[in-house]
């Protein structure tokens, strides 16, 4: 178990080393959120209508962008070999890195979302469900994304390939995430979509680390 804590601590340290770093994930989220009104036009009723979806899609893309390098740097500089020989089970290594990724991108996203939502005129009743859905959904995104990131190790243009592999798996999270926000806005029951999100999280938690571990061992061959 100690390997888990050590790797988690190191990844957090690497991420926080330069103070600007967790900022940049929010930075992307913020900028991408801001792009939509340009594309779509400033009418506030249309923006309010699509705000939940836009926030979710950009959160998803921000998470995806930062995922690409989760294992790639360790792979390219030989650290992955050292981790695989650490005596810690590989799925635990994976879990440590996923938790670190979520802590440095998922949590900032959750903090930034209510700050950015007003620019999209999100109705007040949408905030609670949005935050709950992000809190339940972003860890799932990190877990699923890790599988993809491990699979594309060593491939050229890993980034775009990763999107292709992972986005289809992200769609269910997106659907229920926006459904929760939608339910909040239209005064419908918010619990069912949130329960589904929780279920997906549990499913991803039990399966993704093992799938990722297999992919990592193969990448090292």
């Amino acid at each position, binding site marked *: 178990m*100690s*390997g888990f804590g*050590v*790797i988690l601590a*190191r990844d957090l*340290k*690497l991420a926080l*080393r*330069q103070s600007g770093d967790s900022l940049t994930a929010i930075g992307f989220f913020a900028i991408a959120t801001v792009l939509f009104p340009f594309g779509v036009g400033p009418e506030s009723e249309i923006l309010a209508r699509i705000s939940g979806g836009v926030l979710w899609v950009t959160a998803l893309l921000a998470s995806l962008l930062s995922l690409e390098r989760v294992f790639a740097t360790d792979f*390219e*500089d*030989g*650290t992955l*070999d*050292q*981790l*695989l*020989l*650490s*005596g*810690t*089970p590989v799925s635990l290594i994976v879990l440590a890195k996923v938790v670190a990724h979520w802590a440095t991108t998922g949590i900032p996203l959750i903090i930034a979302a209510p700050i950015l939502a007003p620019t999209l005129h999100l109705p007040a009743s949408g905030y609670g469900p949005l935050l709950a859905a992000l809190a339940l959904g972003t860890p799932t995104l990190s877990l699923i994304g890790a599988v993809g990131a491990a699979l594309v190790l060593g491939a050229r243009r890993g980034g775009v390939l990763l999107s292709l592999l992972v986005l289809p798996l992200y769609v269910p999270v997106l659907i229920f995430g926006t459904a929760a926000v939608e339910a909040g806005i239209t005064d419908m029951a918010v619990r069912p979509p949130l329960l589904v999100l929780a279920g997906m999280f549990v499913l991803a938690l039990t399966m993704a680390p093992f799938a990722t571990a297999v992919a990592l061992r193969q990448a*090292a*061959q």
Partner: protein
Amino acid sequence: MGAEGFEQATFSGTGLACRRGGRTVFADLAFNLENGGALVLRGANGSGKTTLLRLMAGLSVPTAGQLAWNGTDAFDDPDAHGARTRFVGHLDGLKPSMTAAENLAFAAQLWGDGTAARVGGALEAFGLGRLAELPVRVLSAGQRHRLALARLMVVPAPLWLLDEPGNALDDDSQRALARVIADHRARGGMIVVAAHGAAPMSDGMTLDVSSFAAAIPPHWSDAA
């Protein structure tokens, strides 16, 4: 440190073969190591030294043959085999944005009890004491390689696998490396080294990996 010593152990391989991209790199290779033993892998570029070392570490899987630790299959428990192995390869496995000391401390915590007590000694052994607080990114090629080698010392492990450890080292560091290896073997550690030119120890068995490429049965050669 010298007092502890490693438990009695053997590490051996039999009938090892490895195929890469349809070509058999080597076949029917065998070796045997005991406490304090050293094995020097020799052979031309591309003969399979790196391939063999990664196989011994359990990082890749042989096409045929077994690896045994104390007589039982080394891959029954890959995590246990990993824990008793230290591997220094062509890539250094260092984080450019962490300092030299932090890189070693991470290794110490990962493999050991987390006390990181030996970090200072490991740095000194390779003349890196004054660079401890520099980020690895600014180190020179030889300084980085020495740091990767210093990682061998932070937590003792019985089996060292070193891929051309002498590359990029200046003369002082070559001597430091030879000293560190001698200490390790004196405590009963085993070591496998791939080398061109001078090996960092005077005794030890030599295995010419090139010679196992020839042992390919006829039907292999058309796959080449």
